[in-house]
């Protein structure tokens, strides 16, 4: 075909341009749909409980991902500082994933259980009161705002549409019982969402405030579960390397 014919026919030019640039995309994207083996098969990864889920939404709302990554890379220095490198499986229920691309603050992928709830409350309210050299902003409103959990079931329903196994049917519930045990299955059941949120907030009381459920409650619940789902002592290190 002659150069001139393409360049003088804008419809044809657009069509051929699309063909050319889609080759690169197809080569990179298409294999991801049929190469199943890159996602590690591990025990323990589960969807977030309703309270943790609202915490994740607050994490996104406040833009935490702009300064904190959740992706420990397989390098020795990161291993020594943050712990085991992140697995693809660990963010399989994150929509959108929170890998981030910039570390103004430290990586948070294995933050769960590292510090006490009280530390998180204090640190989020006034970071410099515990870490004088910190440049993180204060988030005092997290403790002032009551958590709005009226739409938590809708949020779970939306995630279910993109493949997160929250249960909406008896069948789904039974599958979750089998996979995670009855206690967690109750928490992942959309019909019981509000009840299990209230129960978790009451028993764990992440924000340390009796009788109130604040946005802090949800955010700390989320931060305390980050990176804790997989028990790495169960696996031989070489097992994960097979997936790359």
């Amino acid at each position, binding site marked *: 075909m002659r150069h001139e014919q393409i360049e003088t026919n804008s419809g044809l030019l657009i069509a051929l341009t699309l063909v050319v640039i889609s080759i690169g995309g197809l080569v990179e994207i298409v294999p991801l749909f049929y190469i199943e083996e890159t996602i590690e098969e591990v025990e323990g990864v589960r969807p977030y409980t309703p309270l943790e889920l609202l915490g994740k939404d607050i994490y996104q709302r406040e833009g935490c991902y702009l300064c904190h990554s959740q992706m420990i890379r397989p390098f*020795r220095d990161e291993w020594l500082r943050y712990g085991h490198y992140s697995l693809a499986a660990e963010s399989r229920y994150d929509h959108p994933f929170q890998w981030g691309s910039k570390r103004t603050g430290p990586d948070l992928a294995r933050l769960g259980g590292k510090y006490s709830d*009280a530390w998180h409350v204090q640190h989020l309210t006034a970071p410099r009161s515990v870490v004088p050299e910190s440049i993180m902003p204060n988030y005092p409103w997290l403790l002032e705002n009551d958590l709005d959990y009226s739409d938590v079931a809708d949020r779970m329903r939306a995630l279910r549409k993109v493949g997160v196994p929250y249960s909406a049917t008896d069948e789904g519930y039974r599958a979750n019982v089998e996979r995670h045990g009855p206690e967690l299955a109750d928490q992942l059941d959309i019909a019981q969402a509000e009840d299990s949120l209230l129960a978790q907030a009451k028993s764990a009381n992440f924000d340390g405030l009796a009788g109130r459920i604040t946005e802090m409650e949800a955010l700390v619940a989320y931060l305390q579960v980050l990176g804790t789902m997989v028990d790495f002592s169960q696996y031989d290190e070489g097992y994960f*390397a097979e997936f790359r």
Partner: protein
Amino acid sequence: MSDQNKVKPTAPAVQTTGHAWDGDLQEYNNPLPRWWLWSFYGTVVFAVLYWFMFPAWPVGDGWTRGVTTASVIEQGQTVDRPWNTRYQLIAEMQTGDAALRQRAYAEQISSASFQEILDNPEMMAFARSVGRGLFGDNCAACHGSGGQGVVGLFPNLADDAWLWGGTPERIHETLIQGRNGYMPAFGGVLNPSQLTDVSEYVLSLSGLTQPGEAVEPGREIFQGPIGGCYTCHTPEGTGLQSLGSANLTDAIWTLVDLPAEASTEAKRDALSAFIAKGVQGNRVMPGWSDRLSPTDLKLLAVYTHQLGGGQ
């Protein structure tokens, strides 16, 4: 601008593409700079070599693994595995230069007793340098980068007051198990004047008020069944490290902020408010045995011990 829009005559030495648009608009066809062209060919060659060396192309439901290998030790045997970042990491952690050098020390540390480590300058130098990193990554968020803590929230690790004990063995135990600070709230047990009385007495224990008749009512509450404070803090007020109860006689205040320049009344009021509230579930030191290796925990115990207050 206007003179830029004028059609410039094509220099005869430069080739054009031969097109003419809108009557007289022409396009130069300069050859690419030689250095650029060779760099480009170089990248093409690099890409092809890369495909053979490293994991690259999706094939079927797998992918090409490349011919580069990483030597890892599996069940005592050195085996070559197809290179990827994860195998490389394993190799680096097993036989990398830094890992080997550190392991020599780490093995020494793990088989030595705390006293042997404290007495050995070489092991202490290692504990100080590695401990600093471990402390910064894991402990400094609460206890501060120098171990100074935060009054009212997190204990100071550089002073002489130890709630749970300041020997390397006790610090090690604290690191492994974690700790849970607790004190009942006395707000519902004691009325405000009783709270003031007992605070007055507690201040006298460390010499901040004069002992005498004024502290007598408080002493009765502290030492008697009404307050029962002595059960945890001991009748002398020195506290029990097995319970984590504070020593009230050393004038070191970890939970109540009592600046030296504050008036006695202000100190008493701050103390009463604290006793009314108690310590409920928010004074938690997490256990670290799931997160850090036994050697790291030992190093951290030694490092914390040498911050200034070790016993």
